[in-house]
């Protein structure tokens, strides 16, 4: 296995959920011995775990456990000091974020990062993969532009649907900068859903979302999982984790402390200690 980046980033959009690899039972995401430190602080310290296909895997841990940094390392937003990330049979360590995303691995940000001076619709339509109109010539030349327009019409429909589902449609033409905190989280979610990836890493997607919508979103997560999507979910709300995630991984001081079913994790003394005691 080598770390060479793929020659082409233009992975076809419809490749998602299709198990191209021979071994469909192999874990979709494998993280091995990841390490990352910032100056004196070791944020991730040898984290090793796997995420099976078609699961909603929970990732929990006290504040500062290294969850968000792990997301950064897996998706290439930051480069690990050492360790390895294998996605769908391909070593993607050190890939740039767009390469990972085009391979089908996307993430949301804990602090929603909206594109403030773009409308909600523009935000949503930005996301999908394989947009022919992202090619400069295609977008501009009179003859070949038809296809762009056709695809844009299609994406527009998809964008409206997604926004409707997330109850953002009444804000579609507002600037994203005008959204409230909860709405930003939803828009963040809308964007990754528009990508139609294989796997989505969600960093506290429910923070600030109202309970009714939260239920709806979790339902949607389950139905998406049934369609073949895989999720890795960071969440501080234990009820959500206990009721919706299987298995659950507990991260503590940059290391995996426990891994297992919600029941197992709940009853593990070490987890309790980690949450209560700080230093073990």
């Amino acid at each position: 296995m080598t770390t060479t980046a793929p020659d082409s980033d233009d992975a076809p959009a419809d490749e998602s959920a299709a198990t191209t690899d021979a071994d469909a039972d192999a874990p979709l995401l494998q993280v091995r011995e990841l390490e990352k430190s910032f100056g004196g602080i070791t944020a991730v310290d040898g984290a090793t775990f796997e995420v099976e296909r078609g699961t909603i895997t929970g990732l929990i841990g006290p504040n500062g456990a290294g969850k968000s940094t792990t997301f950064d390392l897996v998706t290439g937003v930051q480069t690990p000091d050492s360790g390895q990330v294998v996605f769908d049979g391909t070593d993607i360590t050190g890939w740039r974020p767009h390469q990972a995303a085009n391979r089908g691995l996307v993430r949301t940000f804990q602090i929603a990062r909206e594109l403030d001076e773009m409308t909600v619709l523009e935000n949503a339509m930005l996301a999908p993969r394989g947009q022919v109109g992202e090619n400069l010539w295609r977008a501009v030349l009179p003859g070949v532009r038809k296809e762009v327009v056709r695809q844009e019409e299609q994406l527009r429909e998809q964008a409206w649907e997604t926004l409707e589902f997330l109850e953002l449609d009444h804000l579609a033409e507002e600037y994203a900068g005008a959204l409230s905190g909860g709405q930003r989280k939803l828009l963040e979610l809308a964007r990754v859903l528009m990508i139609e990836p294989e796997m989505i890493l969600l960093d506290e997607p429910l923070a600030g979302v109202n309970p009714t919508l939260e239920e709806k979103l979790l339902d949607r997560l389950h139905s998406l999982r049934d369609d073949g999507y895989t999720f890795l979910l960071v969440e501080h709300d234990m009820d959500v984790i206990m009721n919706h995630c299987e298995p659950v991984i507990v991260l503590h001081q940059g290391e995996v402390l426990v891994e297992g079913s919600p029941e197992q994790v709940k009853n593990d003394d070490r987890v309790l200690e980690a949450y209560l005691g700080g230093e073990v």
Partner: protein
Amino acid sequence: MATDTETNTLVAFVRERAVLIALGLFVALLVADLFRKLGTGALTAASLAGFVKDGTVLGLSLGLAGIGLAMTYSILNFANFAHGDYITVGGVVGWITAFLVTGLGSFEAQPLVLLRASSRTLGISVTTAPVAIFLGLVVSVVVTAGLALLIDRIVFRPMRGQRGIALLIASVGVALAVRYLLVFTLQTGPRGLTAGQATPSWDLPVGGGSVTITAHEATLAVLAVALMIGTHVLLRYTTFGTAMRAMADNEDLAQVSGIPTERVIRTTWLLGAGLTGAAGFLIALERGALTMSFGWQLLLLVFAAVILGGIGSVYGAMVGGLVIGLASRLSLVWLPESFIIAAAFVVMIVMLLVRPQGLLGGVTTV
């Protein structure tokens, strides 16, 4: 798997430093070529020493002129494009003062104020008119500091907290307004300042030839070093220095912890612009002439020095200035004269690519 990871890290290591390694090789090659040239006599030791001396003088000018820029850059987080014109203002007002002090009584006032009086007849040099030069220096410091405060009040203060680019654009506006107001009042055209025949100089024998050092070069060098050391001591050992460093690190935190940020900003402008004015005056002294745009023409080189040293580091500005000064003069060994400025810019661009945090960056030395 484990070995894979190791090779990966090794590959990554080499890849990350490829530019650095290539650069190291390139520099080594240049040094080797330098020795070859010296050996074959294509380059005499004396002319090499001349380049080194010119480079050092230029480097010290840039370093001194860069301290003020480094200070405001680190506190206010924007690249001040008006800095070059603060240099010019320092040079102009300082020299008007020196002209008046020397010539008033025996010459008409107007040509003195307009810097049109003949520098030959005035005969100013450090040895013939030390008082005039000292007063000129003082006035250049005071006026430039005052101007910087005034401009901060009108232009930058209403914009506190805005993005660096907005402030940068405003500073371009300031630069244009200041420079062309000078042009409007004093008119363009170079002005001779010192009298060459009245300036002592020494010939130092090097190899077969010699290198000439003028008293004005020596004055610039000594005062530049003294001012830099003074600034360092001030920033290191006073509460202002501590407050300034705290703000450079994290302004919000500094504010929360009760540091009077506006006062620190004011003092920074006073000190930074004062030094800049002094730099303008001394650079003009060393060159023996000035134009209304000499500061602007120096600006990019000063930026180069500051960036090279790591933004916000006073030592960095000095070291960066010397590197830029020496690089541009030593480039004469290989390049025709018309490329010396370009060579300095290339050094800066390469530096930014290889070590964007600067030579001494990463550690706030102040």
